């Protein structure tokens, strides 16, 4: 399973490295979202600083939608999804591989977004360790849920509009917990963040477990 996951993740990351969609389209979009928030809240810089954690995670959620859409767009083109089914790869491995590739892309984008928050919102970063842990767990949860709902939507003709409808409600508790953990890290150096981090860990574990089991049947029926 892990061998298949590594193979699929390597393939997806190679596709992204060659197509540069994440670099040329998703990353600029993420920065644009941050800039738009800055424009909207600029009259009160204090609000912008206080809301920076939430704005960061909303921007991550938007970019996650694009990353997941892209992850399954490459499988829909020219019947590649049937190619995956025919390959004999372990469905759980395919799930972990695709989720891993999405998570890797999101983590890279989060570094960019964090820099954007510091520069655009004048936010001082505290509790770096807690922030990194928050990012890792929340990203795993978002990537796992996104991959699961991505394959569900992949077989539907109106998948572009269906995916956000399915995924946003599932991402909402993750975004909420990640925002609370990040706020705690920024304001109290992380002491109040642990309950939210434990919740994020639970979300990540549940979405990964459900995805590992359910991805195969969804891939067959999509």
């Amino acid at each position: 399973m892990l061998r298949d996951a590594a193979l699929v993740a390597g393939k997806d990351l190679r596709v992204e490295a060659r197509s540069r969609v994440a670099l040329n389209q998703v990353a600029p979009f993420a920065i644009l979202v941050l800039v738009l928030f800055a424009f909207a809240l600029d009259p009160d810089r204090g609000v912008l600083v206080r809301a920076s954690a939430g704005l960061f995670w909303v921007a991550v959620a938007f970019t996650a939608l694009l990353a997941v859409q892209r992850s399954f767009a490459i499988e829909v083109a020219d019947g590649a999804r049937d190619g995956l089914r025919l390959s004999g790869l372990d469905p759980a491995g395919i799930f972990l591989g695709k989720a891993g590739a999405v998570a890797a892309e999101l983590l890279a984008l989060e570094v960019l977004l964090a820099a954007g928050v510091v520069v655009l919102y004048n936010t001082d970063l505290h509790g770096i360790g807690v922030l990194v842990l928050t990012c890792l767990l929340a990203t795993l949860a978002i990537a796992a849920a996104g991959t699961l709902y991505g394959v569900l939507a992949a077989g539907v003709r109106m998948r572009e509009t269906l995916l956000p409808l399915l995924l946003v409600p599932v991402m909402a508790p993750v975004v909420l917990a990640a925002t609370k953990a990040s706020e705690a890290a920024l304001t109290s150096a992380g002491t109040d963040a642990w309950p939210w981090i434990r919740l994020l860990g639970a979300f990540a574990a549940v979405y990964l477990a459900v995805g590992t089991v359910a991805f195969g049947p969804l891939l067959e029926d999509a």
Partner: protein
Amino acid sequence: MAPAVRLSRAVALLGRFPALAGADLLVQPGEIVHLSGPNGAGKSTLLRVCAGLLRVVDGDAEVLGVDLRRTPRDVRRRVGLLAHATFLYDDLTVEDNVRFAVQAARAGTRRVEPALGRLGLDGRLRKVEVARLSAGQRRRVALAAIVARDPDLWLLDEPHAGLDAAGRDTVDDLIREVAAGGRTVVFASHELDRASGVAGRQLTVVGGQVHVTQPFAAPAPETLACGA
């Protein structure tokens, strides 16, 4: 030895439509079987069923000794399907696509180079992204992926489509070689003249059923071996 393909009153649905309506089919290992029939008759569906991609909802279906109604996934790694879609990733190179297919099937990557050479994809072309290839070249890449995997059962849907004359001859030679090596080939084609020169038997698919069996004057095994 178990048949390569054994379908008995097999029914498969596309949505609610019975695309395969009680099909019977028996193919022995090492055979080359040509499927003919009008558009929409069920030839592609029959090939997809044999590949384990389309579920059999009624009747019996066994491929390479695997019961397709129980464990269709078990047969997929042992089958090569050349379909209308090529299953390729546009942003990957020719070589990367073939290598991924081979690694996914847990076949040895040593066959990648010879397969690319056999389909005329070596040299400069191997490093070209698939998105930049013509339809015929894409088909060659898809075929190269099957050649490199060297599965036990080859299911080819219009294998000559989009290929130039040399490519068509290569496909015919490949089919003969594969069968001479003991593997089984079932292919659908509208090119009856070409098919009759390659296949040992022709089946006609109409309305999702396999109706007529017509034996060709099959080349002797010695001739097949020489063709290889």
